[in-house]
């Protein structure tokens, strides 16, 4: 429910003229921010479970991730319906020509299969391993989202850099864990070799 507050706030403001002199830009920026916030939250769940010892957090991951998709849908929809007003040729040209739009659009596309396969049925159908591999696409989406933001600002890069460093830390955590596991496995194999030899 809490995740709906930003959307509800936008809706409320829209009806009370609170969106400022450039409402379409306001909605675009606001939904854009929430996509990145929800992507960061989604990526933070695994580290938080392990580092803070809250394994139960896994229950929220799907929902938080789906909210990232929900806000991307609003963001993308705002661009199509309000900003570009369904000017398809212009949108196609933009996606092809403007690299920040290309990368943002890619990030959005990558989220679609994840949203579709977010149900328990799909996890079963794909099998845990394959499902997990597929859902690692969110790493790319998060990076795409940050790059999209970084490329579109004029000169003040502080906010995109802030999101970027959060995504970086969360991905770095995963790389570190991977490396440690590999080292442990290697050490384990070495030990078993030694024990069989003796």
């Amino acid at each position, binding site marked *: 429910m809490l995740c709906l507050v930003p959307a509800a706030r936008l809706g409320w403001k829209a009806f009370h003229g609170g969106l400022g*002199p*450039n409402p379409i830009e306001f909605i675009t920026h606001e939904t854009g921010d929430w996509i990145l916030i929800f992507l960061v939250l989604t990526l933070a769940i695994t580290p938080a479970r392990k580092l803070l010892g809250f394994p139960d957090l896994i229950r929220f991951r799907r929902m938080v991730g789906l909210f990232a998709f929900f806000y991307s849908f609003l963001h993308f929809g705002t661009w199509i319906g309000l900003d570009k*007003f369904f000017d398809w040729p212009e949108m196609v040209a*933009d996606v092809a020509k*403007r690299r920040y739009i290309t990368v943002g659009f890619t990030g959005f596309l990558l989220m679609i299969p994840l949203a579709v396969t977010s149900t328990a049925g799909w996890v079963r159908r794909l099998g845990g391993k394959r499902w997990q591999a597929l859902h690692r696409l969110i790493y790319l989406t998060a990076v795409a989202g940050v790059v999209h933001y970084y490329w579109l600002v004029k*000169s*003040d890069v502080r906010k995109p850099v802030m999101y970027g460093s959060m995504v970086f830390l969360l991905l770095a955590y995963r790389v570190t864990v991977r490396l440690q596991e590999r080292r442990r496995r290697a050490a384990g194999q070495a030990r078993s070799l030694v024990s069989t030899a003796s």
Partner: protein
Amino acid sequence: MLIKKPADLKYSDITPKSIYVDRRKFLAGAAGVGAAMLGGRVVLDVISPRTTALAGTKLSGYSKSPLSTNEPRTPYNDVTQYNNFYEFGSDKDDPAVNAKNFRTSPWTVSVEGNVTKPQKFDMDAILKMAPLEERIYRLRCVEAWSIVVPWIGFPLSALLQKVEPTPKAKFVAFETFYDPKQMPKARGTGIEFPYREGLRLDEAMHPLTLVCVGMYGETLPPQDGAPVRLIVPWKYGFKSIKSIVKITLVEKQPRTTWNMAAPNEYGFYSNVNPKVDHPRWSQAKERRLGEFLKRPTLPFNGYADQVENLYSGMDLRKYF
């Protein structure tokens, strides 16, 4: 008998530096109280957002210029709540909040460089320099939004004639006031301060180029460039530099802030041109604040008839 010209008064001569510094200390104390009040203010704003910006002083005795457009004016609140003034923060709603206490008096504009009569003008002198006119101009931001504003001012040429540019003067460089203490939000916005802009001398002398001291019948609010700014209606908004303290007539094309920040994105000329896109977005259309659908952007922001001869023979793709 030869009467020598007295040495120019320096800005620092006006107020002894020690007092200047002490005053800051005094203000720092006051700022603590102010910050506490501001905290309360934010809460109030959430409950009942402000709808009107701080009003200026009424200006009188200005005539209505035939150079005005008859398009509907953008509401005052939009023009005062949606600003690019990076000294006061990079978000559109920052300047209205952060420039509220900007001290714009006393104010002097120093005009120097290749001129016969370098001078420092205070605001009284500027307000009396030439008959004030109301000019309703379109202003097109490089970010693809636009507004229609009734500015009050006089042609820049009147000011430049006062100082008598020498034949060496080919360009005019402008500089915005910068005080990191009054403008703490400037840091981190990614551009260099003080903000600089420039025009070719013939652009500066063009009758459309305005020294602007007011809008909507009043003096300029701080977020819109008080107390004195430039308006060049056929160029992207960032050329219309705000809160000017220095004007220098120079031989070579001066460095300008946005061009220094990203030379491939913001040219020295920056004439509004729907055919030359910003590398990252299209300039073919614009959103007039208050309108839903975008409208096509016009060459030279609709002032082509008056200004295009300034650029005859120039490749406007190269000199964007």
